[in-house]
């Protein structure tokens, strides 16, 4: 292929990538733009409406924050230990446990809603953010455990054996040597647990009875779809922006770890 042809092809490729990127970011830009517009001019009324709605934006954000914190911590703890066990240890019942965890994916959330409601109430966890968090941890298990198992599997056994030979107990080896090695997996699990619990709508809707305990997505839907006949697109856009900002910040902060810290060599040209 001639140099000129290669340049043209490269240009076309670059243009293609640019279009693709534009398609992905387009809707988000439309949302951000629309959120600060009202009736043809710039205005912050969409945001003020959101801030003052119901029990106040801060209440909903802190409620959601609690659920997110519990879900992320719970998911990390569970998936690190279980992932390690599946990847490295042989134990009776491991297959059954793994299949059981995967089975969570196969039951539609809708089907579990009412049984969960009744059961959590029995456990005195009804109408509580803790109850909601536990359910979210459960929903995250297939992904997080699978992800950590894969991550642990790619770590060469020699690494661990070297640590053990150096006199580490298995637990210290796990903490000092293996965890850093699976850091990207940990970050992925944490990030996705954050996103899932931050944006979840149906579960807190059914499990929470008090308006004051509502999470952000619930308040948002109430505000946007509340009045029949008119969707408050301005408030929706403001709400999407407010919902997205923490997630974007978190992702921007974490994404550096996707490039660094691999034990078996980065593959960048």
């Amino acid at each position, binding site marked *: 292929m001639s140099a000129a042809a290669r340049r043209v092809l490269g240009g076309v490729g670059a243009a293609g990538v640019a279009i693709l990127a534009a398609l992905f970011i387009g809707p988000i830009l439309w949302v951000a733009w629309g959120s600060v517009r009202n009736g043809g001019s710039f205005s912050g009324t969409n945001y003020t409406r959101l801030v003052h709605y119901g029990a106040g934006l801060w209440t909903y954000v802190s409620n959601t924050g609690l659920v997110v914190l519990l879900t992320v911590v719970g998911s990390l703890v569970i998936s690190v230990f279980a992932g390690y066990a599946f990847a490295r240890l042989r134990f009776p019942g491991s297959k059954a446990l793994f299949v059981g965890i995967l089975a969570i994916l196969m039951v539609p959330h809708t089907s579990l809603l009412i049984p969960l409601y009744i059961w959590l109430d029995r456990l005195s966890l009804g109408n509580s953010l803790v109850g909601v968090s536990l359910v979210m941890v459960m929903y995250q298990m297939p992904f997080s455990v699978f992800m950590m198992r894969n991550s642990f599997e790619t770590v060469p056994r020699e690494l661990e054996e070297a640590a053990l030979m150096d006199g580490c107990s298995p637990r210290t080896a796990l903490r000092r040597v293996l965890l850093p090695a699976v850091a990207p997996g940990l970050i992925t699990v944490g990030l996705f647990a954050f996103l899932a619990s931050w944006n979840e709508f149906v579960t807190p809707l059914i499990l929470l009875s008090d308006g004051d305990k509502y999470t952000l997505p619930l308040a948002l839907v*109430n505000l946007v779809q509340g009045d029949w*006949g*008119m969707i408050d697109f301005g408030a929706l856009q403001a709400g999407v922006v407010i919902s997205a900002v923490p997630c974007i910040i978190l992702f921007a902060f974490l994404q550096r770890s996707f490039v660094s810290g691999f034990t078996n060599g980065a593959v960048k040209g």
Partner: protein
Amino acid sequence: MIQRRILSGAAGVGVLAMALVGCAGGGSGAGSTTNGGAAEPVTLTMWTRSVTAVQSQALVDAFNTEQNGKIKIDLTVVPFAEYLQKVSAAASGHNLPDLLAANVIDGPNYSKLGLWSDITARVAALPFADTLAPAHIAAATTGGSVFAVPHVLDASSLYYNKILFEKAGLDPEAPPTTLQEVADDAAAIAALGNGIGGLYLPGDCGGCLAFTLFPSIWAAGGTVMNQDGTKATLDSTAAADVLGIYHSMWANGSMIPESRNEAGATQNAAFEAGTAGFALLGSKALGTLKENDKLKIGVAPIPGPDGGTSTFVGGDVLGISSSSKHADAAWTFLEWSLGDAAQLDIYAKGGFIPVRTDLAENTYAAADPRVVLINSLVKGGQTPYSPRFFQTFNDAQGPFLALVREAIFGSGVDSLPKANDAVTASLEAGA
């Protein structure tokens, strides 16, 4: 000044309420008897649908202020589309709120499921019992017992854009009085072109279509179902006439094309933007639509094919859940919400329809003849009764939506007899 009026009016109602309760042989439960200072503060939980949140919030706030801690209501606003889900979850867990509001069309269903407690005697004892919106009381009555009272009214009417009327050479003060005239006027407006359409109809929303089409059928003296809501009569002449006129509007282009996909969530949009000559909307829209240089709102009753008028009295009813432990305190709120103070100083003043027909003409309403018109419709309006209403008419996969869509956007009214059978089958199911 106004607060004092509310307080004095409310105090009067409060005294009356306490006297009534006292006369009723001493109710059980805290906070219900005379103010011997021993009544403990009661907290009640109340659920309302998001579409009636504004009205409910206004009432609850005023009530809490006046009660000053004696009875406090915690109001939870639930997204209306998920309301039934929450109610069924709570019911399964025997965890319903003390005060449970419902879409009025769900009234018979809730009564049949036993979600509300019987308040027949309490309602009958009210001095204004006869003036409570008859359509709502009928919907809340099952087997002779009353289970809920009207909470928020939403009566369907014909909205038209006076500016577009003038542009099309029609008299903006003389709205159409028959459905056929509506069709003719819509065609005239649609002829204006330039992105202007005649009628915007929520063509993919079963509940909305019932809300807007049934009045024309009733105005023609027809029915949509039998008395107890177990058989559909949508293959009658009246129904065929009404649907036939809408079909012709679709066929000749006077109906805006996007109507076919409108699932209701944005049904006000075209009218508010000034691009639709007509829209059939609820009375709440009068308060939320904003007039501008493209839109001047006129309101008329929904007519039948050859005349007559009627309205679908929608909205919400409010009852005390059967599992509530504070029935008396809950009733205090219900009664208060129906009293003069609440209905006039909160509802009428805020632009909402009073739920009592004796308050239809009040000083607040008199300021806007359109409000007077809508208020006057309530007396003669109907709320269709069926324990299977939601499943048959509102359900997006239900047979009613399919019937209307085929009749209006599809092959026309010849499809009615067969489609009507499917509707009847749904009404009979689970009986």
